[in-house]
């Protein structure tokens, strides 16, 4: 479903992600945990390109969301002037296939590709991009996102928060959207709050409205960025219960969370991010009971 392929993310000189790889299959529920500052939120935000990736690619099904990263495609590297030059110099010494593989490895390791690599190379990148790119706004319609700070639209009543995107994007007409909004509000038991502004809701109510706002677009996958971290402790339960409900409906999801108990309960896969890379991923039972990575052992001993 989502494939994060060798993603690097730099904020200026600060390297947050350093080649993160993560695959999320359809129906999977992935919990992303890790120490603060390890890049787990950034990784999640790279999935729907709220953060532009510096290097690497993000794929949604078989569609590319980011610019092409030539280092990930051997056939594109082979069209570069650098490759041709190196190949011409070495072809006679080693066997042909061996030479190709070795030169590509050399180019990748030493970051040898330059800004301009000849017309053939640019054409290959362009062709690949055109063949695979998916407009990010279309992609985002298929990916719901829930934020730590809720981010309900403060200038709109709850009901307008829910129907704004689907009607503006012409996914539904207003009557359909309103009907769906009320059925979702009924599900979270907030029908009476339809015509109030978000300011007058409690944190838990805000977050539950934010979740159904994403559901309004009928997404194929939901991304949760620490959905309970900004909540009062007594409101965490109601939000987790709703997320669990959505999970039980078979929604594919990725959740960045500090709630280990919840991760273990709901997730089908738990991922440990440390220092910008995926350090370990496993089923919840193995992840929590038999961690391999020493940093993960240390982390779990502190949080559990």
């Amino acid at each position, binding site marked *: 479903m989502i494939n994060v392929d060798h993603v690097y993310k730099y904020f200026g000189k600060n390297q947050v992600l350093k080649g993160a790889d993560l695959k999320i299959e359809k129906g999977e529920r992935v919990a992303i945990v890790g120490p603060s500052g390890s890049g787990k939120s950034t990784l999640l935000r790279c999935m729907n390109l709220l953060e532009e990736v510096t290097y690497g690619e993000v794929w949604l099904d078989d569609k590319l969301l980011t610019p092409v990263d030539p280092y990930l495609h051997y056939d594109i590297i082979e069209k570069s002037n650098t490759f041709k030059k190196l190949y011409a110099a070495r072809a006679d010494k080693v066997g042909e296939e061996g030479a190709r593989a070795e030169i590509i490895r050399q180019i990748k390791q030493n970051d040898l590709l330059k800004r301009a690599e000849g017309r053939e190379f640019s054409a290959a990148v362009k062709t690949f991009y055109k063949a695979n790119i998916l407009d990010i706004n279309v*992609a985002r319609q298929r990916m719901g996102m829930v934020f730590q700070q809720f981010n309900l639209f403060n200038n*709109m009543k709850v009901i307008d928060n829910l129907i704004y995107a689907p009607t503006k994007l012409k996914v539904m007409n207003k009557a359909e959207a309103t009907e769906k909004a009320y059925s979702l509000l009924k599900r979270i038991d907030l029908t009476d709050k339809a015509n109030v*502004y978000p300011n007058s809701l409690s944190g838990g109510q805000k977050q539950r409205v934010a979740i159904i706002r994403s559901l309004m677009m009928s997404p194929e996958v939901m991304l949760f960025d620490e959905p309970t971290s900004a909540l009062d402790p007594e409101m965490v339960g109601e939000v987790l219960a709703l997320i669990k409900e959505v999970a039980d409906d078979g929604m594919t999801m990725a959740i960045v969370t500090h709630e280990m108990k919840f991760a273990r309960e709901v997730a089908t896969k738990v991922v440990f991010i440390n220092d910008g890379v995926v350090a370990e991923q496993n089923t919840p039972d193995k992840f929590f009971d038999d961690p391999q990575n020493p940093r993960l052992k240390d982390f779990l001993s502190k949080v559990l």
Partner: protein
Amino acid sequence: MRQPVLWCIMLNNLLATFFENFSEIILSGKYLKMILNGLWLTVEVSVGASIIGLILGSVVAAVKLLPNNNKWMKIPKFICGIYTTVIRGTPMALQLFIMAFVVFAIRGFPQEIVAILAFGINSGAYVSENIRAGILSVDKGQTEAGRALGLSGARTLVGIVVPQGIKNVIPAIGNELIALIKETSIVGMIGMFDLTQASKVIGSGQYLASYFAPTVVVAIFYLAIVYLLTLVIKLIERRLRAGDKR
């Protein structure tokens, strides 16, 4: 010992002249007409310049705020940057001179238009910065939420961010318009007859030979205009904030 008495007499004389002149300005059609002529010009230039300033400022702010993901956006962004820098970095009086004696140095060209353009262009630079600051003060999460739902950058800006930012913008725009009205008093420098100039002429030796009454009258006029504008701005602000909490 005689000093206080002297002061009293002087004060008495001054006040007597003041009230005499004051009533003369109000009652004699001649002076009132001069003041109303000046008032008309001040209002004309202020209103015209405000309209140009608001439109120009909004456009420039929009250009500066739109996401920089297109190479064709770079040129308008660059031009707008130069515009605000130059306009805010040079004195208004100089800009007025340039407009009147360089750009529109055409015999018979209506001076009102020159003034309106000069003040409008000047005001636009400040308005654009006010709008930009107000819009940027809206929490970044609002944009992210809009974009994450699949809305385009422009749609998010117009539908979600601007309606929230406009509340923060209104007081600053009000300030700018008030400053603009008072700043129009320098049009006398290019020979135009505005409210301030009216007071100067009436107070000159040719007419009343005392500036006290005419300047006070004109000050009252300015105060009244600005006060009226303040009320309007407060009204608009209250309207916009009504949706905030319920």
